[in-house]
């Protein structure tokens, strides 16, 4: 099982060799509510870490999805564009947002572990 890391903007990143798969966390989907619209980046788009890269909208509001790492987009997940509700049902599995060819592995290493992310959520609850 490859390593999964988490960002303060509630994205998860799974590294498979030099390709990072990025999605939003279950916690993020619970805060957003019913997801009704998703926009993912085009292939070959170059992004810097913390760039606004995708969009997710619930019935209530639109939110930006940031790329926690820099690199080149290799794929956007068309499945969730066609059926945005899939992000609610399987946010940390099938419903990834985009894949990115990693430029600098240290960016990945500096993200939070699962334990640290869970602690981060708890601390920010109040």
């Amino acid at each position, binding site marked *: 099982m490859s390593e999964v890391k988490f960002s303060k903007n509630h994205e998860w990143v799974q590294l498979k060799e030099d390709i990072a798969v990025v999605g939003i966390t279950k916690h993020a989907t619970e805060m957003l*509510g*019913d997801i009704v*619209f998703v926009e993912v980046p085009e292939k070959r788009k170059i992004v810097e870490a913390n760039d606004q890269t995708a*969009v997710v*909208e619930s*019935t*209530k*509001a*639109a939110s930006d999805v940031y790329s926690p790492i820099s690199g080149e987009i290799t794929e956007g997940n068309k499945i969730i564009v066609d059926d945005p509700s899939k992000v609610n049902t399987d946010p940390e599995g099938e419903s990834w947002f985009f894949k990115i060819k990693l430029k600098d592995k240290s960016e990945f290493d500096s993200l939070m572990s699962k334990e640290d992310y869970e602690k981060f959520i708890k601390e920010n609850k109040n």
Partner: protein
Amino acid sequence: MEVQKTALYNIHKNLGAKFVPFAGYEMPIQYREGIVKEHLYTREYAGFFDVSHMGQFLINGKDDLTEALEKIIPADLRELKINHSKYSFLLNDEGGIVDDLIITKRKKGFSIILNAACKENDVKQISKYLKSSFKFVLDNQNSLIALQGPNAAEILERYFPGVKNLKFMQGGDFIINNKQSYITRSGYTGEDGFEISILNDEVENLIKFFIENKVEPVGLGARDTLRLEAGLCLYGNDLNENINPIEANLKWAISKRRRLEGGFKGYDVIKKNIEEGTKKIRVGIKPEGKIIAREGVQIFSDEKEEIGFITSGTFGPSLKSPVSMGYINLNFSKEGTNIQIKVRNKFYSAKISKLPFYKKNYVK
């Protein structure tokens, strides 16, 4: 100002409500099931809504009260029968909408349901026109509960026998255990339903009855998607002090006599708008595809000339498509007209749509 809570706050909490601050109150935006399910359940069966944050304004008085209220509310109050309700507004001198409201003629005077965010200011505006002999109160003894959905009448009949005989926009007193509630057949979802003004210490029993009868709680989130599908305005979004009822496409809410005779605040502007037409008008807008155009989105013609703006937008769970309302230059307001909406700096096609997006028949 301290955040206020309705009498049902703890019940909401137990039902898994997520709270948001709204007009000075902690109100449930949604419960465990979420906005889409709450919305669909209301359309398919029945949902209840705590709308106790709204103003319940009661005024006692006779014909001279009717006369005084007609100076600021453009409804035909003189012809309004006892226990009948009308949708209307408070207007400013320029004809702008200070608030939208439901006014009901009662045995001793009138009751007016006001928006939560506007109610304090409304009372100030109204009281300027009232003689000291008229007794008025912004009621805080009663909660206000909406029950909405196709099964609403059958369910409420078991708690308040006789409510099923009410017609749309009519009300009456209902007494259970010597406690009086005032119920109108009305609502703001596009469904059949009721609004129940019930004593704060009785409301819990009513909610328990609802839950036993599989009525689900519905938060402000689904209230917004329901009203938007039904083409109903949200004050602060679709209506404000700089928009008059003619621009808002709500001319129907001003009775014929009042349109001809005037005698209310802002009449000059409204008369001129009726006779000469308005520059802009409220319309329904259906974006193509899944893109959602929310409040603040600009509207352009195919030639990229700016022609309007969106005031409300969301995803309509019953329509399974995005829906918006907004104001547009009159020349582009015809149903079916192609327009462009600019979302996140990209243009998307949309069409002017008739309102409501979603229609069910009210009991007449």
